């Protein structure tokens, strides 16, 4: 009986100890399905730019971090219901999301682009190479008009709850049919299958897919930034966790100064996307 009591006491103590150890531990949520930002290797380990960056930032912050997986469409609700403490999932900083959560400063730039299959009528459209939607100039408007005409009535696939979906639904590209998918993988599959006429996502998501799958997916039209596309990718954090935001901001500053972000960006994207 005494033995049992001792065992019970030990259990309780170890429980408290583990709780105490948890105090400095944070959980970071990522999707694990948006290469090269974040994805999984063949044996199911999380890999990618943000997984590497998260580890570096945690080292700087001296936090004990675990990176957990979460489906994209439940990312913000999961953060709010405390399944994890921070989001690093290629999530752009937008006003719409800021209504519910806060963001750290941006750590990387993401530009979006349309993609079609090689041989499509809309391959190689003559447009500007980049459009910033924050202030639309006359030239940029002309580019949007070209796109509006080229994709009138066409079906464009996007991942659900993304800046890309918001942009297509904003009407800036006119009358397009938007089809939403749970993951970017599924968008890529249906683009290749020909079920959708085009797709919109981060430009690197398409080039990564084209390279790895060998499918003839090509970018077309301009790259997009600003406006609905937000201002870079940052760490999503609950509004009540001001301290954690400060920690991340300081860590991102340090990582940028030391060239860690640039190095990781070049490793995963092939160019310096740090900001």
């Amino acid at each position: 009986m005494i033995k049992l009591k001792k065992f019970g006491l030990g259990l309780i103590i170890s429980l408290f100890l583990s709780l105490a150890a948890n105090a400095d531990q944070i959980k970071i949520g990522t999707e694990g399905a948006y290469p090269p930002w974040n994805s999984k290797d063949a044996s199911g380990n999380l890999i990618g730019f943000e997984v590497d960056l998260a580890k570096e930032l945690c080292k700087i912050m001296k936090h004990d971090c675990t990176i957990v997986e979460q489906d994209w469409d439940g990312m913000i609700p999961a953060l709010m219901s405390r399944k994890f403490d921070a989001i690093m999932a290629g999530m752009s900083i937008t006003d719409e999301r800021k209504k519910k959560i806060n963001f750290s400063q941006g750590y990387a730039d993401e530009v979006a682009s349309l993609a079609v299959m090689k041989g499509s009528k809309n391959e190689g459209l003559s447009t500007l190479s980049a459009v910033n939607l924050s202030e639309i100039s006359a030239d940029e408007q002309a580019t949007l008009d070209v796109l509006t005409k080229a994709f009138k009535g066409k079906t464009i696939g996007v991942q659900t709850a993304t800046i890309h979906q918001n942009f297509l639904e904003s009407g800036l590209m006119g009358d397009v049919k938007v089809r939403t998918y749970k993951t970017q993988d599924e968008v890529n599959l249906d683009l290749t299958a020909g079920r959708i006429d085009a797709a919109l996502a981060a430009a690197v998501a398409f080039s990564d897919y084209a390279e790895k799958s060998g499918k003839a997916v090509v970018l077309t039209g301009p790259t997009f930034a600003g406006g609905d596309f937000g201002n870079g990718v940052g760490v999503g954090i609950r509004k009540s966790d001001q301290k954690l935001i400060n920690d991340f901001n300081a860590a991102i500053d340090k990582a940028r100064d030391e060239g860690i972000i640039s190095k990781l960006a070049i490793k995963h994207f092939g160019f310096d996307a740090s900001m």
Partner: protein
Amino acid sequence: MDIELMINSFPKLLIATITTLKLLSLSLFFGLFIGLLFAIMRLSNNIFLNKFSYCYSYVFRGTPLLVQIFIIYFGLGQIEYLRSTIFWIILREPYWCAIIAFSLNTGAYTSEILRSAFQTIKPGFIEAGKSLGIPKKIIFYKIQIPIAIKQSLPAYGNEIILMLKGTSLASTVTLMDLTGVAKYIISTTFSPIEVFIVAGGIYLFMTFIVHNLIKLLEKKFGYQI
């Protein structure tokens, strides 16, 4: 709790319910024919037909509906040869892919329900018909089918309810059914509880209707045998 969001999302979800009901009714319609066909095959003495029907029901009852939809939608879409055939007109559309998957799935369950209903008919009824000189066809339509319907109603009612909830998987292949629209609203408002409660309430109400409809039919066919 954001009551305003619940009230605002209700009409949108109600419109999406039409898609859900369309998916359900079409799948049940095709599924009933598939089920009847395979039940008859299962009862036949032809070993090939019998085994084929057995395998069909074994495969479709033994794998998750989600996997079936994914194979039909994403899987078949990857076969390049198929994309150049006439089947692609149908398989290109997520709507028909979902209907095919649902019909084949409910067809498998329906065939089992009907088979067991036919098998529980006491041989005495059929023998009585035969001894009165009634043709075999008439015995099938006038004696076996009505008894089988009565026998299978409770189980089939269950199947309808399962299928109603199964249609929510249509949202995984980009269809905007009740669940699809609920997820869409959540993706812009980030408030899953409110929206899913309303969507769940609509499902519950539909189940309530189906349940009572089946009860009514059970009463109607509830003569003693």
